[in-house]
């Protein structure tokens, strides 16, 4: 027998023995689960196939003789036969080229992973889920949603209790505070609370119809307290003669003319979220990134707060 076969048998036996011992010593051993057994079978197959292939080619090198016509080109005296390319190999080579072209033109560009693509899919999925679950909610659930949006976005300035944290932002538990009203009367206001109404003029254009004169400091103080007290107390006459022509007798505003100063309304809140606001305390930025339903919900929550 050829020495090569003997070595093959010895190496196969040694490796199989080693596999047997190492598997036997491992946790679970040869009685392991099906996956372990599959792995062992794979190791055995690998050993046998490797030995078989190595023996085949070493034998071929030992016994084969060169055949065919040499090419003229020589690389450092290493020649090459003019044998034809094996058919299977040629098919694989051309196939790879075709696949390469496809991958370059269509495969990669169409199927490539994109982080932004994944983000867009994620957003579409969330939006669909949001619409399915929340697009039509009303009443208490809407207020509840408004509260959660408020806690995420608004509490940073308006505070957990919506009290404006000691005057650092508007107190949303009441529609208006006296100083806010005074500021609006003194400076006018153009906050688009209805979306498209005219700006409110400052005190130089606010006439008291009863006296026929511009509104006075004293009247401003009185009417501010009147509005801040929820349209009650002294100042009713000043209000009716000065403010009511736009804001209505009850202070609830008029469509396209002036917003309600007696109560919050969801439209008013939505418009503040869309346009931001500037007033006695400072500037509130717009929160356009909230979606329409979230704005509506915040409106419902804030309207509910001051009830």
């Amino acid at each position, binding site marked *: 027998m050829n020495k090569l076969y003997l070595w093959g048998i010895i190496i196969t036996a040694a490796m199989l023995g080693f596999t047997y011992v190492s598997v036997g010593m491992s946790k679970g051993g040869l009685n392991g689960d099906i996956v372990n057994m599959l792995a062992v079978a794979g190791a055995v197959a690998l050993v046998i196939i490797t030995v078989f292939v190595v023996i085949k080619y070493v034998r071929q090198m030992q016994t084969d003789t060169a055949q065919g016509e040499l090419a003229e080109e020589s690389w450092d005296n290493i020649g090459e036969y003019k044998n034809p390319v094996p058919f299977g190999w040629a098919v694989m080579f051309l196939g790879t080229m075709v696949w390469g072209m496809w991958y370059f033109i269509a495969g990669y560009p169409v199927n490539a992973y994109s982080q932004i693509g*994944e*983000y867009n899919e*994620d957003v579409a999925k969330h939006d669909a889920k949001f619409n399915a679950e929340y697009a039509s909610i009303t009443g208490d659930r809407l207020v509840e949603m408004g509260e959660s949006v408020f806690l995420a976005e608004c509490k940073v*300035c308006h505070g957990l209790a919506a009290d404006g944290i000691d005057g*650092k932002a508007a107190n949303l538990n009441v529609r208006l505070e006296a100083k806010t009203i005074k500021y609006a009367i003194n400076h006018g206001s153009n906050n688009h609370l209805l979306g498209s109404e005219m700006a409110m003029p400052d005190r130089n254009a606010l006439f008291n119809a009863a006296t026929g004169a511009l509104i006075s400091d004293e009247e401003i103080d009185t009417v501010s307290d009147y509005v801040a007290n929820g349209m009650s107390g002294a100042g009713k006459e000043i209000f009716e003669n000065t403010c009511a022509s736009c804001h209505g007798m009850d202070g609830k505003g008029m469509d396209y003319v002036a917003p309600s100063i007696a109560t919050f309304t969801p439209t008013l809140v939505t418009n503040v979220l869309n346009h931001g606001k500037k007033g006695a305390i*400072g*500037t509130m*930025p717009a*929160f356009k*990134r909230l979606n329409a339903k979230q704005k509506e919900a915040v409106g419902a929550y804030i309207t509910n707060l001051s009830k």
Partner: protein
Amino acid sequence: MFHWLEKHPFFFAVGVFVAIAFAGLVEIVPNFAEASRPVIGTTPYSTLELAGRQVYIKNSCNACHSQLIRPFKSETDRYGHYSLSGEYAYDRPFLWGSKRTGPDLMRVGNYRTTDWHENHMKDPAAIVPGSIMPAYKWLFTNEADIDTAFAEQLTVSQFFSVPYNKPVPMKDGSNKIVEMAGSVAEAHAMALEEAQVVVADMKDQDVKDAVASGKIPEIVALIAYLNSLK
């Protein structure tokens, strides 16, 4: 040629390197060139904003605050549109940060205001219950370094062609020109003019008095910078 290359291993190695590097060049360079171009609407920093940026760096704001919004729904809901590399075109150095102890500030100018920052810098916990951010009271007394900010503007405009005094395209189709002063004195005057706009929305009387007398406290520069982050 190939015979020659076979006999010269060094040049052969160079050839191999070029051949392999070519793939990298083709993949990386065009994409990089496209992505690092300033995004439309990104403008260079004004003198006061740059001074504020230096206050930001000096106080290590970037140790706790990132300036990089990742493309996740949860982040874009909270902070706005995800960051694009072209938006950092005028950031030297960029201030991406590596850890968010506090929130991201990439677009803080969109949802916080001058008066909020003023109150918050004085006593963060009074505005955000449970906040662990320390108060930055010294910003209200320290003076901002306008000289250095102007020097930086000069440098980047000359060496990196940052478009000062040139029209920069904005998102609405218009052009905006960020002006840079011609001299140090002019730079101070321009920064002061900007500071007056910021200070008009502030309440601290000492800061108002300082600006009225021609000084610019660090807080004013920092707020101008934070408001510019959009």
